[in-house]
């Protein structure tokens, strides 16, 4: 698939912008602060309904406006779909596909699939486990949009159960008999059911993604130690063998629901004592292993970059292998990479159906990266070649 047109209104620094793209490589060149990344961010938002830079929608709206509009025409296998999003912070966003309103913005997920690589991705390796969980969940949604709903349901149950644990813990410390816990069994059941679906999907994803990441890493950093991704569940030893491992069995949600339920029962006293939910995919971790050591804390700056790049390229190859060609978005990353990795990335970019790249200066780009050039300056975008 490729993005044929992008129009934004009151998005970040842009009062208005209107760009048309073709398949292949397109590079947005311009000095810092001209708004190149904002355009990439807009395309990423249509694909994931989130920004890779801001955790909330408020900074996405141009200062002084109340809402931002992003419109993209996406061509997939010769068929064009027009996706429009109206982003209103503090309210629910609205979405239209081919001018027809859709019930929930979530329904536009899947129309556009992207893999975005940006300087912020160093946090995938060095940041908190939450960063890696988000990486997995976004990839799950790109793979199958229904996981956005499953993730939403899980978060809702988790919030309710955590609230119950907190009040129950407080009441117990105050000397009450645990009557607040009468409904905990019910929430346990729902948490286990929704959690198991999410967990099973993540385990299968890690099993499928692992070989792609290892191969991508061997390509960008052949001299480096090999890398591996492992899913570490709060189920610990209760996780059935072979789940989440390449070549292992597909994860069975029912077996996982039983395991989660048993584990919740086992540590109930501890959960009530601490007033927090200790078991479930919201506390799981994607372990990144470099050689024998965990990448987080042990990898050098360069090694961390290679690993982050390998995760994104692995995701790109995984999605490609499953039928839909995702749009590759490379935001300001060539300046961060050394020559070999630049060239390796340019090779992958040349295979993609469409790549959108931003760079401050043309010199940062590898020579192999041919394609259309757009100049971004003073709130204007002009086609430069």
């Amino acid at each position, binding site marked *: 698939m490729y993005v044929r047109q992008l129009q934004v209104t009151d998005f970040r620094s842009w009062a208005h912008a209107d760009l048309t793209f073709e398949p292949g490589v397109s590079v947005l060149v311009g000095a810092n602060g001209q708004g190149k990344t904002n355009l990439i961010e807009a395309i990423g938002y249509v694909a994931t309904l989130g920004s890779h830079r801001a955790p909330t929608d408020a900074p996405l709206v141009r200062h002084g406006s109340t809402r931002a509009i992003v419109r993209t025409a996406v061509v997939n296998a010769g068929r064009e779909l027009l996706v429009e999003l109206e982003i209103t912070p503090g309210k629910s966003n609205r979405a239209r596909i081919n001018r027809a309103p859709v*019930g929930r913005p979530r329904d536009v997920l899947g129309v556009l699939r992207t893999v975005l690589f940006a300087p912020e991705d160093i946090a995938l390796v060095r940041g908190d486990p939450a960063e890696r969980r988000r990486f997995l969940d976004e990839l799950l949604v790109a793979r199958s949009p*229904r996981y956005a*709903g499953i993730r939403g349901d899980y978060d809702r*149950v988790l919030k*309710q159960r955590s609230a*119950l644990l907190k009040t129950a813990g407080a009441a117990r410390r105050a000397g009450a008999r645990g009557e607040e816990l*009468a*409904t905990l069994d*019910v929430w346990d059941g*729902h948490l286990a059911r929704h959690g198991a679906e999410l967990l099973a999907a993540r385990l299968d994803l890690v099993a499928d993604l692992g070989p792609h990441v290892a191969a991508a890493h061997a390509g960008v950093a052949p001299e480096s130690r090999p890398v591996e991704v492992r899913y570490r569940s709060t189920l610990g030893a209760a996780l059935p063998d072979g789940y989440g491992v390449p070549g292992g069995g597909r994860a069975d949600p029912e077996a996982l629901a039983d395991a989660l339920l048993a584990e919740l029962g086992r540590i109930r006293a501890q959960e009530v004592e601490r007033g927090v939910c200790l078991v479930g995919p919201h506390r799981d971790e994607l372990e990144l292993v470099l050689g024998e050591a965990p990448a987080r804390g042990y990898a050098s700056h360069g090694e961390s970059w290679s690993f982050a790049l390998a995760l994104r390229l692995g995701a790109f190859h995984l999605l490609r292998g499953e039928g839909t060609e995702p749009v590759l978005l490379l935001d300001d990353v060539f300046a961060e990479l050394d020559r070999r990795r630049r060239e390796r990335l340019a090779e992958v970019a040349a295979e993609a159906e469409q790549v959108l790249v931003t760079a401050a200066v043309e010199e940062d780009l590898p020579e192999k990266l041919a394609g259309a050039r757009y100049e971004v300056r003073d709130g204007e975008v002009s086609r430069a070649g």
Partner: protein
Amino acid sequence: MYEGPVQDLIDELGRLPGIGPKSAQRIAFHLLAADPADIGRLQDALQRVREGVVFCEVCGNVAEQSICRICADPRRDPKLVCVVEEPKDVLAIERTREYRGRYHVLGGALDPLSGVGPDQLRIRELLNRIGTDEITEIILATDPNTEGEATATYLVRLLRDFPGLAVTRLASGLPMGGDLEFADELTLGRALTGRRAV
């Protein structure tokens, strides 16, 4: 900001559900320009709601007397009780004109985030009704969302041990007049799981 009473009115209106600041302002100025007789009727209506509305002693629905019209109606099947969250759900089911049983209004759903547990809902009243009346079937019609599902599961646990009592849950599935291709995966998945032989 407007001065004094006008701003007070806008603020009060803005606290109502579904009314934002702009709508509140529009309604406030509409009221300012309205006929005093209209305002009087609105005032009366508000006053009567405050003084006059009671909740049915049996089902918990809003009523004018101590027993609501539905519970007092001898033509209604007393063996069948439909459990809903809010009085507005009673109205929704009544509009179908399909249901001839009675109701039980819980007054909400389990919602620990808002501090709502079983004791805040009319669950004990429901158990008392089952103990004394001739009820043979309970239809659980709580909302099909996280809180409604949790409430239904909780009630199933409480009710399944009553001898001779059938507990059923509203089916969930495809909307009538809709297109299969536009149904979301969750709804379609449930419709498949809950399919029936024809």
